[in-house]
C-alpha cells in the first residue's frame, strides 16, 4: 500500500529546491536564479520527450508478445536482432535516461543482453533527431565519420557487457515496482 506521505517524501528535495529558487528571486540572488533557469530548461526538455517515450513503452508492453521479442531480438537473434535495436533507437529522441524504461521493457519480454546494450549505444549516439542537429552544426562529414566509427565501438561494448554479465545474467528492474 502506498501512503500519501511516502509519495510526498520523494518530492521533498525537489520542492525544497523550487522554494529556494523563489527565495533567490525575491532577494535577487544570481546563483539561485541561474540554477532555477537551468532547472526549467531541463524540465522543459524532459517534458517534451519523456511522456512520449513512456507512451511508446506502454504500447509496446500491450502489443508486442514475448514470443516475438524473443524470436526477433533474443539472445540467439544475431545481426538481424541488432539491426532491429538500432532502427528502434534511431526513431526515438531525448537524453539517455529516456532509454532505460525501454530497455527494461525489452528485457522483461526476453530481449538478449547484447541487444539491450546495442539499443542503449544506438540510442545515445544514432538518434535521427540528434543527427540532423549534428549535421547542421558540425557538418555532414563530421557526423558521418563519427557515426561510422561509433557504431562498431558501441557494438563491441555490448559484446563485452554480454560476456561480463553472462555468469549471473542481466536483471533490469522497474523502479515503479519498488517502494521508495
Amino acid at each position: 500500500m502506498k501512503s500519501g506521505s511516502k509519495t510526498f517524501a520523494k518530492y521533498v528535495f525537489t520542492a525544497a529546491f523550487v522554494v529556494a529558487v523563489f527565495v533567490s528571486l525575491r532577494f535577487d540572488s544570481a546563483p539561485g536564479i541561474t540554477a532555477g533557469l537551468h532547472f526549467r530548461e531541463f524540465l522543459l526538455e524532459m517534458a517534451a520527450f519523456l511522456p512520449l517515450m513512456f507512451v511508446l513503452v506502454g504500447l509496446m508492453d500491450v502489443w508486442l508478445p514475448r514470443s516475438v521479442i524473443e524470436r526477433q531480438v533474443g539472445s540467439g537473434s544475431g545481426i538481424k536482432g541488432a539491426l532491429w535495436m538500432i532502427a528502434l533507437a534511431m526513431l526515438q529522441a531525448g537524453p539517455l535516461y529516456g532509454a532505460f524504461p525501454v530497455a527494461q521493457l525489452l528485457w522483461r519480454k526476453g530481449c538478449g543482453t547484447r541487444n539491450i546494450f546495442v539499443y542503449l549505444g544506438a540510442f545515445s549516439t544514432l538518434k535521427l533527431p540528434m543527427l540532423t542537429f549534428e549535421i547542421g552544426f558540425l557538418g555532414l562529414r563530421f557526423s558521418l565519420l563519427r557515426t561510422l566509427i561509433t557504431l562498431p565501438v558501441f557494438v563491441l561494448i555490448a559484446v563485452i557487457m554480454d560476456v561480463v554479465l553472462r555468469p549471473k545474467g542481466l536483471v533490469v528492474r522497474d523502479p515503479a515496482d519498488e517502494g521508495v
Partner: protein
Amino acid sequence: MKVLLIVTVILVLLSLLLDRQKTWLGICRGMKMFLGILPDLLVVLVVAAVLLAMVPESTMVRFLGVKSGPAGMMMAAVIGSVALVPGFIAYPLAAVLHRSGVALDVIAVFITTLMMVGVITLPVEQRYFGWKVALWRNGLSFVGAVVVGLLMGLFL
C-alpha cells in the same frame, strides 16, 4: 523531437483503431512507469542545474579551449561525462568550440561522452540496472568515447 512525436502519434492512432481498451491499458501502464521514476529524475535535474550554475558553459569552453592533444582529450572526456547538457545546447556549444580552434577529435570525445556517459544520471540508471551494470556500462563507454576520438583524429 518531431520524429518521436510523429512516430508516437501514428502508433497511438493505429493502436486505437485496433483496440481501444488495450491502448488505454498501455498508456496507463506507461504513465505508471513514468511516475515511478519521476522523483529520482527530478533530483538528478536539480543537481545538474545547480552544477551547471556553478560551472557555466563559458568555463567549460575555457577548459576545453586551452588544451589540445591527449590532455585536451582527457579534459573533454571528463567534462562530457559529468555534464548533463541537452543536445540543443551541446551542438551549438561544439560549433563555438570548433570556431575557437578546438580540434574536431577533442570535440568528438566531448560529444560522445556527453551522449554515452552519465555520471550525474547514475542514480537513475542504477535504479534500473543496479550499480555493477551501470558502472560497467559507463566505464566502457568512457573508454569507447576516447577510442572514437582517437580514430576520428586519424581520419580528420
